[in-house]
């Protein structure tokens, strides 16, 4: 049995509010194996993005870790100092965001921004890093990489910008790539290309992926294992196939039924979409049960 790459144990986050505190994450635990693509699916406010920010050590002020640990390659990230965390970030753990325009520096060429990763983390000279940056652009299948390297972010389309983000994120061959809604801002046809790119590059390099998305289709396409988050809890976790075929938790069932599915009207006629609130009027009971399926390799 291999050791997990990322092992989040009973992670709890809260926003202090006077004497009490408002819980944001409640004892979330999951593991990502090396090279595995793990999906976190949930609606806004479910805590899926906060989980990724905590892993990156990028939690913002009012949020506080109130318990648990985030073990990455055996080290607890929550105990690392700022400098150690900074060294890890971008090098061993990289992240791509939903809106590449806000994540890229508008005043520097994309070539320079990618090159900076090599200078910063691998101590390369700017000359050498510039060449590596063009190679990196080519690897994410940006046409005319040497010319594109001289572009500024605003001169590129959303899809190209997201490719640049991927090139930056994968520059140092990280062990874990966190992708937070990487294609939500993109058109469907562009989304398909970007997803394919992430999947292929990560498979090629053995990079594990933590994919955060509200889109069950995207998760199904990308991930081997899925965790469903609701209101700060990981309410269900299973192999992707099992989760979609045999959802156990009421919320997961509701989520799957709430989605109009392409082709379903042709097959079954128009059926009314499932309204979660009409199944369970009191949503607070949803967090009281959890279904975490054991990993097959653990049981063997």
């Amino acid at each position, binding site marked *: 049995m291999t050791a997990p790459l990322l092992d989040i144990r009973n992670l709890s986050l809260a*926003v202090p*509010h006077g004497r009490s505190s*408002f819980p944001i994450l409640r004892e979330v635990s999951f593991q990502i194996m090396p090279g595995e693509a793990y999906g976190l699916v949930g609606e806004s406010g479910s805590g899926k993005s906060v989980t990724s920010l905590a892993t990156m050590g990028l939690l913002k002020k*009012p949020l506080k870790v109130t318990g648990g640990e985030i073990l990455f390659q055996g080290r607890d990230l929550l105990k690392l100092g700022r400098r150690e965390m900074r060294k890890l970030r971008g090098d061993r753990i990289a992240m791509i965001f939903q809106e590449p325009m806000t994540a890229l520096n508008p005043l520097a060429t994309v070539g320079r921004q990618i090159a900076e990763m090599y200078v910063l983390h691998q101590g390369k000279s700017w000359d050498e890093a510039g060449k590596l940056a063009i190679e990196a652009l080519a690897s994410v299948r940006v046409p005319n990489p040497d010319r594109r390297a001289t572009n500024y972010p605003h001169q590129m389309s959303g899809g190209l910008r997201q490719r640049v983000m991927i090139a930056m994120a994968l520059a140092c061959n990280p062990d874990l790539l966190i992708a937070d809604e990487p294609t939500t801002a993109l058109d469907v046809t562009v989304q398909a290309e970007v997803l394919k790119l992430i999947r292929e590059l990560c498979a090629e390099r053995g990079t594990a992926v933590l994919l955060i998305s509200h889109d069950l289709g995207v998760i199904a396409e990308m991930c081997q294992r899925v965790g469903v988050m609701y209101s700060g809890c990981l309410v269900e976790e299973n192999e992707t196939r099992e989760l979609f075929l045999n959802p156990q938790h009421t919320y997961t069932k509701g989520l799957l039924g709430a989605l109009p599915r392409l082709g379903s009207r042709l097959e079954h006629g128009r059926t009314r979409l499932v309204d979660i609130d009409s199944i369970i009027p009191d949503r607070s009971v949803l967090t009281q049960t959890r279904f975490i399926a054991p990993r097959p390799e653990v049981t063997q």
Partner: protein
Amino acid sequence: MKLGFNIFLGGFLTLLVVFGGLFAHWLAPFDPVLDANLMNAEMPPDTEFWFGTDAQGRDVYSRILYGAQISLTVGIVSQLINTVIGVVLGMTAGYWGGWWDDFVNGLTNVMLAIPSLIFALAVMAVLGPGLVSLLIALGLTNWSWTCRIARSSTLSLKSQGYVQAAQTLGYSDLRIMFTQILPNMMGPILVMATLGMGGAVLSEAALSFLGLGIQPPFPSWGSMLTDAREMIRVAPWAAIFPGVAIFLSVLGFNLLGDGLRDSLDPHMRTRKL
């Protein structure tokens, strides 16, 4: 809490000026104009004349209280005029666009290029000195920034769904501007007006100091400074106290404006936790 502090101190200073101005008649121990007595000229501050007396023996404390009336009137009325001009021009320019927008933009740029004090001086030169011309001069000179803010707010609000929805519901342009756009940009406009009041008080002081504002013997903080100029070595209190009054009231208006800006920021309001 910085936000609370700004509003608190700014509001306190502003209230102090308002209170002093409104109740000057009861608070002032002497008449600011008539109680001149050369026997008491240039007396340093003591228990009778709290802030001392000026060259004509008038009580500086009483004159400052009455001067607050002038400063407040100038601040409020001139900013009222500025705000109305700026909002009407900026909102219509942003909403209608086209040649009207170009015209308003040009006018705003010209106004911004002329130092407002010089422009006010020119207006005063035409209208002659006095309170009314002072109000007109200051009311006509400082609307450019309000106009710009109103225009850019209108431009961004215009594309909001609720403004478009109002159009499709049959609202007339004027109704849309006054019911949908104006209420949603009152925050920054109010802040500009409050900050502008400080500027207006300073401008009034400057114009009166130059002899173009409030005419003697009526007290305004600026004209008091003019009078005190020649005897600043013998009776510095006659200059210091009006100066402190100007400083504190301008500080008060500015802090209040800053505080308002922070508290009117919608992001501050929607933050629930």
